[in-house]
């Protein structure tokens, strides 16, 4: 009866791995870390989802309150018993008080796998006519442990830790045969060493990958529910992670083909891990920071302040004088706050804001422009390091990449302009000053959340294909070397 080589090797590998206590211990530790990382990621996701739920509830309550107050004022012949600056029928007051809406970047479910920039970048803003305000909700800082370990997630374990385990799995595939003397019996079998090694490596790759997903899928299902399985991004993620594991196995195959000692194999692979996982990405970042230096956020604030000062020193003087001295507004002369005064402040705020926004936009464009240039360069150079490539792809698939937050921030800027365009004309209506109605309250612009799925399937497919080609090249080189060596 003929034995299939695959069956023989599979059984052999299974027994050998199962009886290797060091490997089993290491694997178990890393699987525990993997579960921990999934818990961290899902906790952050849940935290954001809780915050967004609270924001939704707050928005509905604020809107209902606004409309109820306006209705009450209208029902009492426009009589408002409270402080004039709180009267919601003044557009300027509503623009300041209950009018500002939240702009929200909805987290992807896969954010539980790759925290990316979500720990640093705001995922929601409160948008005023004068500014977009990034807030930290109370519940977001109640778990200081999560804040402390925010980058320890699935992507960290996959990109940095699991390659180390792959190295332990593979560094002595061939050298151990030589060192323990079984090489001689293998060479007298009628299988080529290249084929044997390839078969064993393939089986180890399959077992390793299956073990990782066998842990990740049920744990993630328990933590965030099974909906992620129905997303296209999930299957892309599975494919990319499988490709990344394949790269490290292929690299180990090539290193093994040089027939060095186990120690040298291990050292070579660790060096490559350091080079590809840590050194190259960091050198790249240092280089790009020099080529495209990012202006500080302090510079952004400074530019805004200078623009305000310029405005008040020059153009604003005229407007301010006009408004202050106008018989309609009577700000200067008034001993009590008049309706005209509220209107006048609205005019000053809206006009000065246009000038400040223009000045800030230059500084913002400079900041985000430099960041985008860096991102474009990283996108082009990510091929130098599979670790960097996977990190970029995982963050993108999880919706936590820099460029996704960048786009969100820019969308919020556009939304603020819409908000301004909505409130400014109402603030400038002079007929009664008190122009804001229930109908207007219903018409306050709402931020339309987008998915920010910035990579097309075609692009991802191309990246994956090139990755697979890279793996195949390594395998072919290793196979040829082994064939040549065993001749």
């Amino acid at each position: 009866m003929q034995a299939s080589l695959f069956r023989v090797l599979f059984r052999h590998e299974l027994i050998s791995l199962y009886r290797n206590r060091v490997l089993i211990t290491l694997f178990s530790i890393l699987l525990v870390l993997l579960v921990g990382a999934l818990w961290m990621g899902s906790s952050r996701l849940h935290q954001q989802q809780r915050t967004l739920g609270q924001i939704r509830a707050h928005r509905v309550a604020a809107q209902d309150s606004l409309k109820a107050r306006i209705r009450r004022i209208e029902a009492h012949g426009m009589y408002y018993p409270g402080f004039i600056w709180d009267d919601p029928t003044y557009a300027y007051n509503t623009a300041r008080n209950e009018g500002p809406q939240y702009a929200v970047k909805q987290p992807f479910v896969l954010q539980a796998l790759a925290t990316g920039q979500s720990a640093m970048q705001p995922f929601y803003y409160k948008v005023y006519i004068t500014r977009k305000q990034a807030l930290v909700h109370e519940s977001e800082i109640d778990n200081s442990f999560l804040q402390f370990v925010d980058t320890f997630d699935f992507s960290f374990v996959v990109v940095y830790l699991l390659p180390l385990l792959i190295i332990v799995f593979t560094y002595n595939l061939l050298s151990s045969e030589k060192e323990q003397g079984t090489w001689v019996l293998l060479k007298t079998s009628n299988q080529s060493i290249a084929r044997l090694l390839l078969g064993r490596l393939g089986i180890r790759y399959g077992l390793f990958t299956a073990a990782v997903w066998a842990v990740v899928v049920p744990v993630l299902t328990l933590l965030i529910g099974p909906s992620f399985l129905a997303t296209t991004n999930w299957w892309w993620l599975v494919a990319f992670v499988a490709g990344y594991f394949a790269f490290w196995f292929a690299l180990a195959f090539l290193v093994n083909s040089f027939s060095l000692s186990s120690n040298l194999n291990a050292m070579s692979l660790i060096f490559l891990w350091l080079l590809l996982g840590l050194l190259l990405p960091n050198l790249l970042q240092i280089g790009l920071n020099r080529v495209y230096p990012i202006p500080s956020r302090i510079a952004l604030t400074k530019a805004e302040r200078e623009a305000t000062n310029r405005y008040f020193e020059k153009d604003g003087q005229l407007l301010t004088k006009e408004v202050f001295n106008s018989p309609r507004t009577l700000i200067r002369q008034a001993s009590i706050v008049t309706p005209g005064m509220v209107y006048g402040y609205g005019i000053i705020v809206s006009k000065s804001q246009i000038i400040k926004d223009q000045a800030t936009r230059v500084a913002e464009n400079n900041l985000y422009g430099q960041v985008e240039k860096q991102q474009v360069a990283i996108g082009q150079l990510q091929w130098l390091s599979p670790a960097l490539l996977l990190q970029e792809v995982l963050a993108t698939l999880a919706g936590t990449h820099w460029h996704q937050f960048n786009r969100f921030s820019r969308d919020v800027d556009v939304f603020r302009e819409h908000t301004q365009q909505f409130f400014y004309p109402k603030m400038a209506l002079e007929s009664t000053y008190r122009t804001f109605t229930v109908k207007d309250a219903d018409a306050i612009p709402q931020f339309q959340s987008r998915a920010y799925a910035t990579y097309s399937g075609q692009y991802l497919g191309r990246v994956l294909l090139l990755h697979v080609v890279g793996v195949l090249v390594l395998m072919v080189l290793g196979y040829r070397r082994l064939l040549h060596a065993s001749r």
Partner: protein
Amino acid sequence: MLQAEQLTKRFGAHLALDHLDLDIRSGEVYCLLGSNGAGKSTTINIFLGFLPATSGRALIDGLEVSVNNHATRNMVAYIPEVVNLYPTLTGLENLAFFSGLSGYAYSRAELRSFTQTAGLQDAALDQRVGGYSKGMRQKVGIAIALAKQAKALFLDEPTSGLDPHASNEFAQVITRLSSQGVSTLMATHDLLMAKNLGHRIGIMHQGRLQQELHSEAVSYAELTDCYLTTVNQSV
């Protein structure tokens, strides 16, 4: 079955094997004697395809080793001085693996019959090889050869370090295999083993086959004299 035709091997300036001619028939046990560096192991390594010959040909069942390496490896089994096996696997698992690599899938009962033929006790079958003695490992090596259904057996100092009882058991197995038509080329320093086990004995010195004797035609004393005379030629 095994033929060497003007087989020569050079390692740089050193001539390790010098125009060796051999012809070993089916079922014949051929013992190569000689001091260290005489060329015995080099001869075996060329037959196994581990080393390429500088010139000349090594043939197994009419097939030239260097040209038909894959086919010739299928016909041979090799038992080195120390049979190294996977220490975390049991004797039976090692046997199943190496016979499986050669394309044979045996039942546990069949594998057990090979180990019994090789003289390995049943109690040891399911023990990890890490705890085996040298003799037990040799027996697993023989069982692998049996399971591979090898036509030719290459032995390199197989009884070195074995106790007399284990050596005797080993010799019995080789004799049994010989009676089944398996050709054996054995490199050894053990003159008594060569005399008792071999049909023919070749004495090598400095890469050349200096003497070839039929073991039945010489006494142990004559063999010893002949051996000493040959290896002391250049002293």
